[in-house]
C-alpha cells in the first residue's frame, strides 16, 4: 500500500460529455430519453416560426427566441412512467436536474432528482477516469459493480 485518497468529484466539462453521462444514468435508472437536444431544437424552431407568424410586429422577438433556441440545445428530457426529469445547462452555466410529475409527491420528486444527480455524477466520473487511464497506458485488470452500487476498477501499468 502506498497512498489512499478520498476525492470529492467536480464536474467541469462541455455539454456533450455531460449529456453522455446523463444518458448513462438514465439507462441505469430505467429512464428513457423522451427528446434529444436535436428534437427539442427542431421543436423550438417550429415554435419560433409559429410565434413569428403570430407576433410579426415584434422585431426583438427573433433574437430572444434565438437565445432560447441555443439554450434548449443543451437539455435532455427523460421519462419513467409519469415522472419526467430534465437535465439542462442553466443561464449561469451550471448543470441542473429537475424532476416533475403529477402523480408524485414533492418528497418523491426530490428523491428521484437526487438519485439521478448521483448516478449522473458517477457515470461522468467513470467515463472521465477511464479515458484518462487509457491515455496513460493503464490496462484494466478487473472492473466490478459492488453490492452498494459503487464501481471498483483495478488498473495496472508497467514502468521502466
Amino acid at each position, binding site marked *: *500500500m*502506498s*497512498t489512499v485518497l*478520498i476525492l*470529492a468529484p*467536480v464536474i467541469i466539462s462541455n455539454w456533450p460529455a455531460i449529456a453522455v453521462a446523463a444518458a448513462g444514468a438514465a439507462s441505469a435508472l430505467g429512464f428513457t430519453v423522451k427528446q434529444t437536444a436535436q428534437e427539442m431544437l427542431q421543436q423550438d424552431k417550429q415554435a419560433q416560426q409559429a410565434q413569428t407568424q403570430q407576433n410579426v410586429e415584434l422585431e426583438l422577438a427573433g433574437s430572444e427566441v434565438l437565445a432560447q433556441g441555443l439554450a434548449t440545445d443543451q437539455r435532455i428530457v427523460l421519462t419513467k412512467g409519469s415522472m419526467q426529469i430534465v437535465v439542462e445547462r442553466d443561464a449561469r452555466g451550471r448543470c441542473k436536474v429537475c424532476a416533475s410529475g403529477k402523480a408524485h409527491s414533492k418528497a418523491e420528486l426530490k428523491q428521484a432528482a437526487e438519485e439521478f444527480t448521483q448516478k449522473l455524477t458517477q457515470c461522468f466520473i467513470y467515463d472521465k477516469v477511464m479515458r484518462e487511464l487509457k491515455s496513460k497506458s*493503464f490496462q484494466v485488470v478487473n472492473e466490478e459493480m459492488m453490492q452498494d452500487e459503487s464501481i471498483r476498477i*483495478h488498473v495496472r501499468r508497467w514502468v521502466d
Partner: protein
Amino acid sequence: MAQHDVEITISRTGEVKVHIEGVKGKACLEYAQWLTDVIGQVKSRQLTSEYYEPEVKSRIDLHQDLKVEDGAP
C-alpha cells in the same frame, strides 16, 4: 520493470476512493496529483509506509582507479 497498480472505487454518490499501490516516493505523489486533477478535490489523504520507502533505481556505478606506480615502465 516496476508494476504500478491503482484501484479506484466510485461510490454511488460519485465520491471516489483511490488506492495507489506499488509506487514509492515522489512518483506516488505525482499519481495522486494527476488523479486529483482528473476527479476533483481531496477530502482526505493517507500516506502509508511504502510511500516513505526509497524509489527503486537500477544503477550501477563503475569506478576504475588508475594508479601509476613508481618504477613502472
